[in-house]
């Protein structure tokens, strides 16, 4: 793990590097954004609502789930429901934030607060691997998230307008971009049997068990916390 280091750097070159690192997942992201646009049109959102949701919520899985809960008339109770469901789908971002917090230490809080708006699965895993290999430029985290935001928002609009024209993403397995990319990017994070195998196995098994027992997205947070707790108990050397 990192030493409590000096102030984190943030450069334009880092942002551009992050944007370049995101390129492999762009086809999947484009198709996903088109699919969200199309689904939101089907559910009766206006184009402005769909675009605004992509722009200010910026969380694909949560946006898709919210469409299942979309109402023709809204009450305070249905607002609370959609906010709570959104929070459970996105609770994984809190854990991702916790994992990168030591990297942000010493930086200007306003910069971190703005940059964190762009935190998504892909930017987090890219930046985590980059940092694991010794990189320190926060531009990789923020820049990849910003390019992903631009693609996500701009894909929502043609998806909304021409949803039924979108080719079948399943045929090219584009629905699997994130799980395959996530799993592959964990390979460089491997630190051997003691430090990695046990926590990861506990995380995966708890995730499987919780998924089987509890509806919704609790399995990610439950499994990940169980893995981190296991990691705390296993000593690297000793």
């Amino acid at each position: 793990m990192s030493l409590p280091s000096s102030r984190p750097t943030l450069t334009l070159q880092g942002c551009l590097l992050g944007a370049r690192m995101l390129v492999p997942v762009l086809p999947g992201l484009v198709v996903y954004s088109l699919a969200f646009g199309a689904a939101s049109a089907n559910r009766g959102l206006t184009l402005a609502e769909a675009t605004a949701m992509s722009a200010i919520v910026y969380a694909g899985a949560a946006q898709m789930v919210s469409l299942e809960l979309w109402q023709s008339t809204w009450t305070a109770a249905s607002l609370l429901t959609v906010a709570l469901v959104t929070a459970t789908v996105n609770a994984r971002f809190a854990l991702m934030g916790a994992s990168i917090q030591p990297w942000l230490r010493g930086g200007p809080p306003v910069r971190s607060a703005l940059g964190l708006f762009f935190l998504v699965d892909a930017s987090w895993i890219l930046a985590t691997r980059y940092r694991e290999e010794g990189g320190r430029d926060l531009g990789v985290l923020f820049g990849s998230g910003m390019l992903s935001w631009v693609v996500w928002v701009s894909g929502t609009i043609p998806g909304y307008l021409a949803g039924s024209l979108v080719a079948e993403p399943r045929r090219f397995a584009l629905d699997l971009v994130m799980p395959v990319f996530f799993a592959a990017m964990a390979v460089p994070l491997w630190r051997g049997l003691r430090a990695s195998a046990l926590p990861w196995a506990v995380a995966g098994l708890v995730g499987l068990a919780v998924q089987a027992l509890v509806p919704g997205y609790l399995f990610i947070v439950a499994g990940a916390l169980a893995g981190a707790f296991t990691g705390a108990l296993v000593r690297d050397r000793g």
Partner: protein
Amino acid sequence: MTAGDLGGYGPALAILAMAAATYLCRVSGVVLMSRVRLTPAVQRALAALPGSIVAATVLPIAARSGPDAIAGIVAGVLTMALVRNEVLALAAGLGVAAGIRLLLPI
């Protein structure tokens, strides 16, 4: 308009509520961790956290998606382990999954 109906503001309020909930998720882990001292145990937990997030996300998704997803994920991981190139890993994983879907229509 029934009691409690928010009328035309409903969709905008729903989107704002979702945005607030999501942003709170994005910052809450960072804010909480900024109050935690980085003891060796906390550092070990943080070191195990990224891989644990991946495992707790990918295994359940693979389990419920079926053999095409499992084979694609395994192919991606193996390719990454062999060549350490995420573009090739992604291509191999999606290629295997797409191939299985082509051969065994599910």
